[in-house]
């Protein structure tokens, strides 16, 4: 039995002119935990789909446990012992836990009839493997995210999977849930299961993996034991550039209070107090479920408050709608740009000018295309959106550029307070640094900014002071001088 459980050689894959994979080789050793890292667009998601049979490669082959395949189907991949856990877990929200667990195996065995007793047995066996207790008859859509992921993992283990592939497994989990996941992965390791996980989070890479492979631009840039890599090399291989580590901000003093919250409560959080000053970047951090997102929504009028007050430049304002928030100079770059921020098939012009239509229009609400184009043109240039033609749909842009479009939209309104929720999620490192730099500049020019984020390095690089939230309440406040990795990490515990 060879050492290598999975190897892909010379895999190429293009989508209408875009070369997602340019001849990729990977070798995964039996029993190891292998991390696949890379930026958005590096090809890491594509190679996973080739291995699992969702995509057929244009060239190259896959060898699993000695058997060579030039192409795969999902069912064959499953039969060869490969199980993939996608970011959305591939579950059926409308079906029971039992059916979610049993289907893959039943289909792979080409069974035609439904035998509920058998399904139940299969399901019980599956959840036993990771000691997961759950109501088997519950409809999956009623369960929390972490449970859905455990269902996906249980299902993957059913078939005595030889290789489990996990795509960004910790994205939707709270810290506790991440801990539980890590324990399960350790368990799997002990039982000799080979794991390949995709991630861009350094902490995970170091904690879990034995070997790391880094993709860039559709190519395997390097594969090496994790013990030999450090943060600098990691960033270098991922981006091809050397970045100076972002300097933590120098402590600054502020005077004018622009936005104040007093005992503010809304669905998801209660009794929040803070003062935001002109020129200050205030961080709001905490795990998933801490109420940080709800706070940003309430400040922007998307969520109605249940108690407390918000004061803007000293005057009490009931921010009961987005329109009122806008009128008072507030702006929000939402958490999920794809579903909440952007109008994907619409042009970049429209996406940038959408919130300013009232101001850009002439008499009687009449819009001139030229005015819109000029406005958009200005911002595309100012903020650095990489595109040659802003009449193209915004979905043609990369994640980082899309985020810049949303930013441009709100900056064009000259807000007093700019709130950003997860400003650089899914954004490549280059754009990430650009955005951080931009925020710091804006603050220096007097804008008050709130950055809601759980990315420690981001908080350190941008924020002057930080509010820590947990379980819907503010549990800590870290000010300038005291702000560093340790104090932050401790506070988020």
């Amino acid at each position: 039995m060879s050492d290598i459980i999975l190897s892909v050689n010379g895999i190429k894959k293009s989508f209408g002119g875009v070369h997602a994979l340019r001849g990729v080789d990977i070798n995964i050793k039996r029993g190891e935990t292998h991390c696949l890292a890379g930026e958005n667009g590096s090809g890491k998601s594509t190679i996973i789909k080739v291995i699992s049979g969702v995509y057929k490669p244009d060239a190259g082959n896959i060898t699993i446990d000695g058997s060579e395949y030039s192409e795969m189907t999902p069912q064959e991949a499953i039969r060869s012992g490969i199980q993939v856990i996608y970011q959305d877990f591939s579950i059926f929200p409308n079906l029971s836990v039992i059916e979610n667990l049993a289907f893959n195996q039943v289909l792979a065995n080409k069974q035609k009839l439904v035998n509920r007793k058998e399904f139940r047995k299969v399901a019980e066996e599956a959840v036993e493997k990771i000691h997961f207790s759950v109501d088997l008859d519950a409809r999956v859509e009623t369960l929390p995210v972490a449970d859905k992921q455990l269902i996906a993992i249980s299902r993957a283990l059913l078939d005595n999977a030889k290789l489990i592939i996990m795509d960004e497994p910790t994205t939707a989990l709270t810290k506790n849930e991440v801990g539980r996941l890590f324990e399960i992965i350790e368990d799997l390791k002990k039982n000799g299961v080979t794991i390949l996980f995709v991630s861009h989070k350094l902490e995970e890479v170091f904690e879990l993996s034995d070997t790391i492979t880094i993709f860039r631009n559709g190519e395997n840039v390097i594969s090496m034991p994790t013990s030999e890599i450090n943060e600098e090399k990691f960033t270098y291989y991922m981006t091809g550039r050397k970045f100076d580590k972002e300097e933590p901000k120098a402590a600054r003093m502020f005077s004018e209070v622009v936005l104040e919250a007093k005992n503010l409560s809304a669905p998801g959080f209660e009794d929040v107090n803070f003062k935001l000053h002109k020129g200050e970047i205030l961080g709001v951090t905490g795990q998933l479920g801490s109420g940080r997102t709800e706070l940003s929504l309430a400040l922007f009028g998307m969520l109605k408050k249940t108690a407390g007050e918000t004061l803007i430049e000293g005057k009490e304002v009931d921010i009961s709608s987005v329109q009122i928030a806008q009128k008072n100079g507030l702006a929000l770059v939402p958490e999920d740009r794809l579903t909440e921020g952007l109008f994907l098939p619409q042009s970049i012009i429209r996406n940038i000018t959408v919130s300013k239509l009232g101001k850009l229009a002439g008499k009687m609400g009449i819009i001139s295309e030229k005015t819109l184009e000029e406005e958009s043109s200005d911002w595309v240039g100012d903020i650095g959106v990489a595109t040659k033609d802003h009449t193209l749909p915004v979905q043609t842009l990369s994640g980082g550029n899309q985020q810049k479009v949303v930013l441009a939209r709100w900056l064009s309104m000259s807000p007093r307070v700019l709130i950003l929720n997860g400003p650089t999620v899914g954004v490549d490192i280059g754009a990430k640094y650009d955005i951080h730099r931009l925020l710091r500049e804006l603050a220096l020019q007097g804008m008050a900014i709130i950055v809601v984020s759980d990315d420690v390095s981001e908080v350190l690089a941008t924020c002057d002071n930080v509010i820590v939230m947990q379980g819907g309440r503010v549990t800590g406040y870290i000010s300038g001088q005291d702000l560093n990795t340790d104090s932050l990490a401790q506070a988020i515990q």
Partner: protein
Amino acid sequence: MKIKKSQPDGNMIRLLAILAAFIFIAGITKPALFMQLGNFQSIGKQLAEYGLMALGIGVCMISGGIDLSAVYIANLCGISAGLLMQKMIPAGGSNPGAMFLSIAAAIVIGALCGAFNGFLVSKLNIPAMLATLGTYQLYMGIAVVITNGSTVSGLPSAYTALGTALVAKVPLAFLIFLLAVLILSFIMQKTIFGTRVYLVGTNPKSARFSGIRNSSILIRTYMISGIVAAIAGLVSLARINSAKADFGSSYTMQCILIVVLGGVNPNGGFGKISGVAVAVVILQVLSSYLNMFPDISNYFRDLIWGVALIAVLIINHVIAKRRIAKLDSV
């Protein structure tokens, strides 16, 4: 940033080409009947009713919804205007003031019906197809109740004269349709409201986050559909000198087909009023042309229409696919 000159609208070109082709074929095969002023006048007159409703449904579709109740709003408004005129104007008499009032009342009723639709869709979050399915029954039901199931007829000749009126040899009904096309086109293309309708139709969540008041936009959208339907009902009333609760039940599906053929994306966010207008004309030209063959039943038009729709959808699909593939390689 160099500002690119706006590209000619591919879909519009295809539609105009189809229209030109039909007129050409008709002109060649039935020159005596088709290439007559009378024929064109007839075409213009007949397309006004369902054409107006198609415009309204088109706007609703662009906003991400649909209006299945349009025909019944039209009927209800026509019936209301008819009943009012019957009450206020003695048989054989004339009273322009009362006529005007009845017309105004009908339009108000249309606006209210539309607003109710918009309310259900935006404030109660009922999917548009279901909401307007319910209101279609409701409005038809109300129409049945106020007419006691019978037909409203016997309208003042001054009003029915409008149904056949010509302005510089162009049927009044067609002018009304044209006016509606121009106004709606302008609203959708050149105003803040119109742009917001497109955006709400593309992604209602992002629309809210970007400061758009979705319910205000949607209520107004369905009100437009209601008002346009009311006008359609009034035109119909003038032309046939009667109004019934269940008239034109096949128009709904026909209008939806016209709208999609005209380039409106059923998922919302895209499509032009001008495209819908051209599609309406194409349908009526086809209809009138087929009418000139006494052996060919009118229903053949349905057959051709259905095939044309599927064909156009496929062609648009293939073209869009090619365009995206080209973009991918940018």
